[in-house]
């Protein structure tokens, strides 16, 4: 004799683990306590149309769990955001963190965002260019790129060799004393600095614009560098 509850079984919303088929119809009740459940076992709502469970005992059926009210029966584990109110974090906390994340991203222009475009001016060139510092991982790469960019202009020894020479400190004094060009940059405080003193990442963070200067003008910028070179050479 089918109970009244049994009449509705086919259409009843049941809670089921995927793959559980008729849902515990072997008469397992809470004896399955120690069952090790793999991580991959997912929980979601499954419309259980299987009327194998003949005793119609809701208690035995109801040992499975329901995570989301969505009517999906896919085996994909629901992502956390689908579960209402879980994890139990108050909304004002969620909002604060989200706002802070956004704030950090917009404030920290070079650190947070994925590009760091700065203007590049070369003394004597008719127009400026823009480079994305984040495209490069080192000073050398930057110099290579700048050389290529400005190779069409006659700017004396400020070709790729000139810039590469700059990296070589033993030539620095010659460069600075001579009319060779030197890359400089304006930092966050508005000061004009000699390129190359600080680690690359710090430079990317601080650099607001680049200017390739003539050597004689660049001398006053980083006297310590000249001292260092003098000491070493």
């Amino acid at each position, binding site marked *: 004799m089918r109970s009244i509850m049994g009449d509705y079984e086919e259409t*009843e*919303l049941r*809670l089921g683990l995927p793959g559980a088929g008729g849902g515990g119809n072997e008469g397992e009740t809470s004896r399955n306590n*120690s069952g090790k459940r793999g991580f991959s076992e997912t929980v979601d709502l499954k419309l259980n149309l299987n009327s194998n469970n003949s005793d119609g005992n809701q208690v035995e059926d109801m040992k499975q769990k*329901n995570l989301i009210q969505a009517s999906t029966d896919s085996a994909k584990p629901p992502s956390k955001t689908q579960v*209402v109110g879980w994890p139990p974090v108050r909304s004002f906390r969620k909002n604060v963190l989200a706002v*802070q994340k956004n704030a950090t991203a917009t404030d920290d222009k070079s650190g947070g965002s994925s590009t760091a475009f700065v203007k590049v001016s070369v003394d004597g060139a008719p127009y400026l260019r823009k480079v994305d510092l984040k495209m490069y991982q080192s000073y050398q790469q930057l110099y290579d790129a700048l050389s290529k960019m400005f190779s069409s202009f006659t700017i004396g020894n400020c070709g790729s060799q000139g810039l590469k020479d700059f990296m070589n400190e033993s030539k620095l004094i010659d460069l600075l004393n001579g009319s060779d060009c030197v890359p400089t940059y304006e930092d966050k405080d508005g000061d004009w600095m000699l390129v190359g003193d600080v680690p690359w990442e710090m430079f990317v963070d601080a650099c607001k614009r680049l200017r390739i200067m003539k050597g004689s003008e660049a001398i006053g910028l980083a006297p310590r560098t000249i001292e260092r070179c003098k000491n070493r050479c």
Partner: protein
Amino acid sequence: MAYSFPEEVLEYVFAFLSSDKDRNAVSLVCKSWYEIERWCRRRIFIGNCYAVSPQIVIRRFPKVRAVKIKGKPHFADFNLVPEGWGAYLYPWISAMARSYPWLEEIKLKRMVVTDESLELISKSFKNFKVLVLSSCEGFTTDGLASIAANCRNLRELDLRESEVEDLSGHWLSHFPDNFTSLVSLNMSCLGSEVSFSALERLVSRCPNLKTLRLNRAVPVEKLPSLLRRAPQLVEFGTGAYSAEIQTDIFSNLVEAFSGCKHLKSLSGFWDVVPAYLPAMYNVCSRITSLNLSYATVQSPDLVELISQCPNLKCLWVLDYIEDAGLKALSSYCKDLQELRVFPSDPYGAEPNVSLTEQGLVTVSAGCPKLQSVLYFCRQMSNAALIAIARNRPNFIRFRLCIIEPQAPDYLTLEPLDTGFGAIVENCKELRRLSLSGLLTDRVFEYIGTHAKKLEMLSIAFAGDSDLGLHHVLSGCESLRKLEIRDCPFGHKALLANAAKLETMRSLWMSSCSVSYGACKLLGQKMPRLNVEVIDERGSPNSRPETCPVEKLYVYRTVAGPRVDKPDFVWTMDEDAALRLS
């Protein structure tokens, strides 16, 4: 009784009884004691605004000066209670306005408060002193303006964590120039900027100001000005704690903090720039309470700060503190009583910080006075829980949230039954427990057997069958509040333990398997309970009796069924059962 004390003497004696429990006991002794007590009760606490009506309260206690009322169920904090459910303050205020002209204090939690209510409060109670709105909603800054303008003797205005519609910051300027009685102001939940000069003047003219919690809109460079005007402050909440690093701001802050010799509690710290934290080092040795739960600062900076606070009793922090930071905490802060660790990225799939069960184990070992914990993490093991339980048998509150629902012991892949079992077995004074992770009926057996002092239990995604619920309802003698979500509990345990529900404040069950038919039965059996079905799918009559209801809220009451129900709430009672069947 031929001989008894004059009423005045009894009244005098009763005045020494502050706890409601004692007063309730006294009122049961005899009729005359009942009468005397009810006329001299000044403070009432209503744990569930629907358990009693304003009229009943006023009839019994005619001379009340302070009320504390709680409204929505706790799970409303996590959006499980639909909008418009209830907990309206207005009927209470309008009744009390007539009957309690000398009301001084109103403290509310999870109630819907309108500007109209606030205005009525401000105009009805001439000696009004204390307004605390904890996790409330429904009002705007206009309502606050009424309070500011009209409550001449206001001492406390505390808006903790309420949702306020922020029309403008102008409300603060409504405090009159001759208003000097403020002792506590907490506006940390507000968004908009108040007039800073009005705030400065307010702070200057209130010599008794002990608590000032600013909102995020007050920038760090303005803090020294306020601190200098209120060196007597005991509790202080900053606004946004960031600015371009400038040495003069920093040194002003250091000086201003140094002037506050009584500071014990610090909070705020939105948008923290770590370089500004050392400005507080001078006061850290006296600090007992630190709320860094908005401070997105990395562990080393947190440790640097915490290491200066040897007297810390209460710490709220984000999981940026990591296991390493908690280890430092356990070595520096031996007085620690309460720890709350909140998740910085609760919805991320992968852990973003190195915070595991180990942090909690370390703190439980190192902090002998630790009694209250709220801990969010991504992995847990039975071994860790057992260690924690053995380390710290003095836990009173233990709330663990493993972020992934039904996460097993990550070492053995077993359920966490034995771990939580150890907690309830060892911590004999445990009053509040929140469970998480993979749990079977066995954990409820442990809880029912051992958790005799447990008053509040929160369960999610746990258990196998009604047996689990039965263990809890039949075993937990002190249980007052039970909240359950997404568990396979049906009606059997509920119906078998129906009488238990009358000894509790409330029961919440959502996304479980309690059928509509069972709810009706429970409502019929238990006339002194309100059995409320919350279902946004429309009337439960449109579905079969066996269909589980979405949400069920059961509570004891002397006020009968609610009269202010929205259209998605149905009370199961005799009339309803007859009408609907």
